[in-house]
């Protein structure tokens, strides 16, 4: 979604072409992100001609302020949906920054790791908006990610296993 997409594209901006092909996963209800992504990739293709990317959509795990109980149900549904997608792509790296959409994808990848099907490195970057507290996605993925990056020092203190690189977006 909006802010998350802008942030993640900024994170991608300095990555070399080793990080290719890029598979973007979006919530089905997200209208604006696709245009931003295509524009980013188009510009990128001007510099790196062999640049490749794809876009996939999954059902949104949770609406803003959705109740706990129904969130568990919708997230389970999203996991069921994203597991085959993650299995198909078998990514070496998952990079995410916090929308609910990322949780089922990361959990699917984690599961694939447990099943010894594919070992994916999960890198979570908490949004720049999160200064003192983690988002719900962050609270969950703190335990499932390989690298958990925060952008403010207070969070580094509270979550000692996290990585602090300063502001990166």
């Amino acid at each position: 979604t909006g802010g998350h997409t802008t942030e993640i594209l900024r994170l991608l901006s300095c990555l070399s072409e080793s990080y290719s092909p890029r598979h973007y996963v979006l919530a089905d209800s997200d209208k604006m992100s696709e245009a931003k992504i295509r524009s980013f990739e188009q510009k990128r293709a001007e510099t790196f001609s062999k640049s490749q990317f794809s876009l996939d959509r999954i059902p949104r795990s949770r609406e803003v302020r959705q109740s706990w109980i129904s969130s568990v149900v919708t997230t389970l549904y999203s996991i069921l949906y994203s597991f085959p997608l993650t299995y198909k792509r078998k990514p070496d790296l998952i990079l995410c920054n916090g929308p609910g959409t990322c949780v089922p994808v990361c959990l699917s990848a984690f599961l694939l790791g447990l099943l010894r099907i594919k070992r994916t490195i999960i890198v979570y970057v908490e949004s720049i908006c999160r200064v003192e507290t983690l988002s719900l996605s962050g609270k969950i993925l703190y335990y499932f990610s390989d690298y958990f990056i925060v952008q403010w020092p207070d969070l580094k203190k509270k979550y000692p296993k996290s990585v602090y690189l300063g502001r990166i977006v």
Partner: protein
Amino acid sequence: FRFKDSLAEELQSADLVISHAGAGSCLETLEKGKPLIVVINDKLMDNHQLELAKQLHRDGYVLYCNCSTLVETVQSMNLSALKPFPPGQPEKFASFLDKVFGL
């Protein structure tokens, strides 16, 4: 206007921006080097939005008020006291990832 894809044009020509505490709005404005007053909406308050606005204010990048104190804030503001906002460094992230993958 209601919704535009981008406020970049308006931002470019503005001398002062008064905005809600949304991260996108705040950061976009600060990156364009425009002075910013963040207005916290007590009713629509999303606590996490507040975190960034408070931090930006603590660091001296923005002014900060709520709907009822907006007028006096604008009347008494000292914009030159605001610090310039340094850009984020995605290259640090790229280096970090490269190290993870041994690139």
